[in-house]
């Protein structure tokens, strides 16, 4: 199996198996344009993110062997659970957000879907303020406007599951 070399923004080099590298639409485009022997430069990708992506591919192969299902081809509930448990451990909210952007940039669809799902799980019980911070969104409501929404839908702001 041919190996493709990539270099991340901080100068580290990684080797990916060709079929896995091709899962990234961005890398695939580069490979189609240039020779497969050249190192592909990924100035928008950090080394820690690349490590995570390789971790993901390894996990997929493991689970595909275990369950006998081609996870890269379709979204599978069992994979989501296993994936979440693995990825959730050492990934902060901010890092998850960055990884999400990187995977979107690289165009790795299945990983992107799973990360979006993970991000949704992380976000769903947040308060409005912490959600705003996490997504880096500008607050553009006047206090009166916001108060009106909070009053109209007060039930949505209550509940034991909402993190404080």
């Amino acid at each position: 199996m041919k190996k493709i070399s990539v270099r991340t923004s901080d100068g580290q080099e990684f080797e990916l198996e060709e079929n896995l590298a091709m899962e990234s639409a961005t890398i695939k485009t580069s490979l189609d344009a240039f020779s497969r022997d050249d190192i592909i430069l990924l100035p928008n990708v950090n080394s820690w993110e690349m490590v995570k992506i390789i971790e993901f591919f390894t996990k997929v192969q493991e689970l595909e062997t275990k369950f006998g299902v081609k996870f890269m081809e379709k979204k599978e509930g069992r994979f989501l659970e296993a994936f979440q448990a693995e990825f959730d451990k050492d990934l902060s909210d901010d890092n998850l957000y960055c990884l999400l952007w990187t995977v979107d940039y690289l165009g790795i669809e299945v990983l992107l879907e799973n990360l979006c799902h993970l991000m949704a799980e992380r976000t769903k019980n947040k308060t409005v303020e912490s959600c705003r911070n996490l997504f880096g969104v500008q607050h553009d409501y006047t206090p009166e406007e916001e108060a009106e929404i909070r009053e109209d839908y007060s039930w949505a702001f209550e509940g034991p599951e909402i993190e404080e």
Partner: protein
Amino acid sequence: MRNKRREDVASSITEDLHMEILVRLPVKSLIRFQCVCKRWRGLIRSSSFVTAHIRQHSHTHLITDDRSCFDQVELCYSLFRCERFEQSLELKPPFHPQLDYNSRLDYFKIYGSKNGLVCLAGNVMDSSSPIYIWNPSVRKFRILPQPRFDHYCVDCFPKHVDIPLLFGFHPELNDYKVIRMMLPGSIKMEVYTLSTNSWKIIQVIPPWLNTMKFSTRSEFWNGMAYWLATKDSMVRVVSFDTNNEEFEELAVPITILSDDWDAYIEVYKESICLLHVKVELDNDVGCDCIDFWVLQERCFKKLHTVYFPQVYHVIWGFSVDNELLLEDYSSDGELAFYNLESKQVQKIRISSYLSVHTYIESLVLFDM
């Protein structure tokens, strides 16, 4: 270094990516996150988002009419999350219809559940009896304007058939319809459309429609209504296209041999199918068998026959995962799922209900 990166990402992240995350959030979170910013509020309320959100949340719940509330004044519904089937929520609708619970004919029930909207009504033969469309997830509801026809007159028509309301989704129009058919005597029909909030009387009723003997079984799918009927001891399905307002008689090669025949019209894998229940009393243990007929190009074809080891009674339709929902008559009306492919029965400890419907969370009616 990570902090700098974080800011770079925040400035270049696309709204598409935000949407991919938002669309996977539960309804309650989304309602709260309206306050995050005005752009998000607009996005969450948009029709395209509501549709995309429905697609992400198709595997969720069952909603039941609680039997225990039959004698009470307040309506109660229970929501059960699929997979675990534990009661996740007790729902009390934000409306209180004035109903006469003394009359057996006059009880309030769910007529349909689609894309998170639940259609409820009491006595559908009476035009003053309210009909509601309710979205429990966003806590919004609409009372339908009064229908035109009123045929509730016990003295005049002692043998009336309580044809259920049909409630369904029309995907091409991205709209919801309620169909009310009035029997007996000369058939009258009217159709309600959610987007226009109005009833329309169907003017052209073909004469052959009055020769049909309608049962109480019906289904709405893909903009078409289907009613189960009989004529000359043969089973018939009457279809009505809400686009061109045309009726059609579909033949089913099933002969009715006795009065206690039973069949259901349901949607299975995006096709209309007929489930013909045959109880065989040859054995010591009564064995149910169901013939599956599927509508293919305006004609019903028999797909296969399914046998059940015990006596299952009422069929409640198919779940989102295409499993048959059954009421197990032998164990106090407990619910069970039957998988047609694996032939596995999964019992669920849900009982004491008037009816069961599949239900999903959605944002429909949120912008009301």
